[in-house]
């Protein structure tokens, strides 16, 4: 399964893409890599809590897919979604601040790394339950048809999520009702420590769509141009034919599942093979080879990203903690059930 992806060269640059878009895509991929590395460092320092899932290695899949959509097309994702937010244009300051749990974060410190959301950029959120966000995307697609709009929804989920029943339910409804949804499976070949070969009866995950008479294909998720083209086609199809489709992007994550995974069960040889196809390095070659940018320009752009993320870390560090008085914001709760110290104490107990 992995051989076909590793063997072939980078796909041709799609005609619809111009030099400045390619430069921007390279910049985004590098921004995400830089952000993720800094987030890991801040996690080790204890500035970020909870789970931290990094997308290092998956930048081509994330950036290629997001770049092929209009900025108003809704996207949903998993808990491994810092990249999606950044690719969509969320302010890195607000993303980092969310990881720090500060008031200035994208979700005011209530969501954390797994639950970024940026409505302004039509990023409809990161969700923690595997498969959980898939039907939400179908609902967003339903709303587009309902209002006779021409948007397209993209739901991004992992290979592991294809084994949740809700994917079948969602695909069936999307096809049945002709909804403009792109089911984008980012197949990094593992769900935590479990290889796809031990979890899926058919490891060609794109074939799942066939049961619903939905077009689908597998693409090289390490090749940003291939991802861009595929999503571009799928979006065009959804906008004109009003039909869903599925894309399976074969990729690899370079770190463990989360910061707490020592990553000692995946074969070293396999890791090395996929590292050799680092999407940043391969795309840099394309960009330089096609004279899209000079080495100096790329160097400047990388330096600017490092400065940008430095700034995001300082911003997050300097941002205020969430006041405890705001504990029950945005939820209905009986007035007697929430006292500022936490814990429900019976009414009248303090009198």
């Amino acid at each position, binding site marked *: 399964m992995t051989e076909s992806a590793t063997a072939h060269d980078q796909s041709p640059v799609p005609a619809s893409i111009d030099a400045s878009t390619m430069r921007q895509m390279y910049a985004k991929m590098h921004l995400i890599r830089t952000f993720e590395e800094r987030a890991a460092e801040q996690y080790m320092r204890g500035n970020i*809590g*909870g789970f931290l899932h990094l997308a290092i290695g998956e930048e081509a899949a994330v950036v290629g897919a997001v770049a092929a959509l209009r900025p108003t097309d809704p996207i949903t994702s998993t808990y491994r979604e810092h990249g999606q937010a950044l690719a969509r244009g969320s302010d890195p300051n607000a993303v980092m601040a969310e990881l720090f749990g500060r008031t200035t974060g994208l979700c005011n410190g209530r969501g*954390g790394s797994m639950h970024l959301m940026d409505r302004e950029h039509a990023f409809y959120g990161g969700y*923690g339950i595997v498969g959980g966000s898939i039907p939400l995307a179908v609902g967003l697609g339903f709303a587009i048809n309902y209002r006779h709009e021409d948007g397209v929804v993209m739901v991004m989920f992992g290979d592991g999520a294809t*084994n*949740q029943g809700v994917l079948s339910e969602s695909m069936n409804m999307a096809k049945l009702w002709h909804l403009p949804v792109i089911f984008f499976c980012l197949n990094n070949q593992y*769900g935590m420590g479990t290889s796809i070969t031990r979890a*899926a009866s058919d490891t060609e995950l794109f074939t799942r769509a066939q049961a619903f008479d939905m077009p689908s294909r597998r693409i090289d998720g390490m090749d940003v141009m291939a991802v861009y083209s595929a999503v571009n086609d799928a979006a065009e199809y959804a906008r004109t034919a009003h039909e869903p489709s599925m894309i399976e992007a074969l990729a690899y994550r370079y770190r463990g599942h989360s910061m707490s995974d020592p990553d000692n069960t995946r074969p070293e040889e396999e890791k090395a093979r996929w590292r050799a196809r680092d999407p940043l390095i391969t795309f840099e070659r394309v960009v330089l080879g096609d004279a899209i940018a000079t080495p100096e320009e790329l160097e400047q752009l990388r330096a600017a990203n490092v400065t940008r993320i430095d700034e995001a870390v300082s911003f997050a560090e300097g941002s205020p903690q969430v006041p405890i008085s705001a504990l029950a914001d945005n939820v209905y709760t009986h007035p007697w059930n929430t006292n500022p110290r936490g814990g*429900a104490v019976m009414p009248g107990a303090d009198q």
Partner: protein
Amino acid sequence: MEHQPARWSGHAGCRSVSTSTPTSVSYREALTQAMREELQRDANVFLMGEDIGLFEGSFKVTRGLLTEFGPTRIVDTPISEAGFVGLGIGAAMSGLRPVIELMTVNFSIVAMDQIVNNAAKVRYMFGGQVSVPMVIRMPGGAGHQLGAQHSHSLEAWFTHIPGLKVVCPSTPYDAKALLKTAIRDDDPVIFLESEGLYAKKGPVGGAEDLIPFGQGIIRREGTHCTIVAVSRMVWIALAAADILANEGISCEVIDPRTTRPLDLGMIATSVRRTNHCVVVDEGWPECGLAANVAAHVYEACFDWLDAPIGRVNAADVPMPYAHDLEQAALPRADDVAQAVRATLARRER
């Protein structure tokens, strides 16, 4: 705090009984021991769950078991909770004894239909022709900044369902002994572990040291107020009792260990002596575990109570991510101490 098969009191002087392993092991390792011994004892027992084999479990509770028992009995699954919980029920209906691990309690929600509509129902609904001798283990609780979708305490949900038995161990001894009881029980057992307790150490019993369901334990004796808590909240209650002891307030801490069946007898006996009661519960207040225990205590002890029962719950909000906010949303020893003081103060008015 250590183990004691029947009733035990005081922090000091607890000793393991003759069959116990004298060494101190973690709550995590106690669970592993229980499973290893039951796998050895009964060929019908098998384990199934996500990443429990090769990866040895997200919390390493199944460490070493794949090597020892092989992939027929230690089965790694796809991420299909509804599917493999249902599979477990079917296997149990045919007489196997599945021990299903859900990576955390939060993912049981995906499988809730199978648990509530099938596991809890078939024995009754089919007139007793079949039973479901299955255990579903899962860690729960909050406190690690895992946010709103990964911080549930669903003791109350499961306790609500006739047909299920619900176990919430607080010590390594209880974790081992109760898991063995659960595996040998002929009904579906929801076995709720606490993420916050996996590293906690203490003595454990031997291969035949079991604790029957419905038998609570007095963790600390006292005279002024009875505090009822399970799982990690037992430790919060004990910490509160320490704080209050410095103020001359003597608390009795009762750990019912299972919430269905519930050792109401032990709780009522205590409350009839102390005349005051506070219930601590890591879940939410509405229709919660504490509310349920309090209702039972009112019915059993109304004439003995000198003040309304106090409840200490998680704040009635989805769990926030921000560290300080999350801490503020969870029951802490100070909150429990304050609830006890408030309950005692009511009497004096």
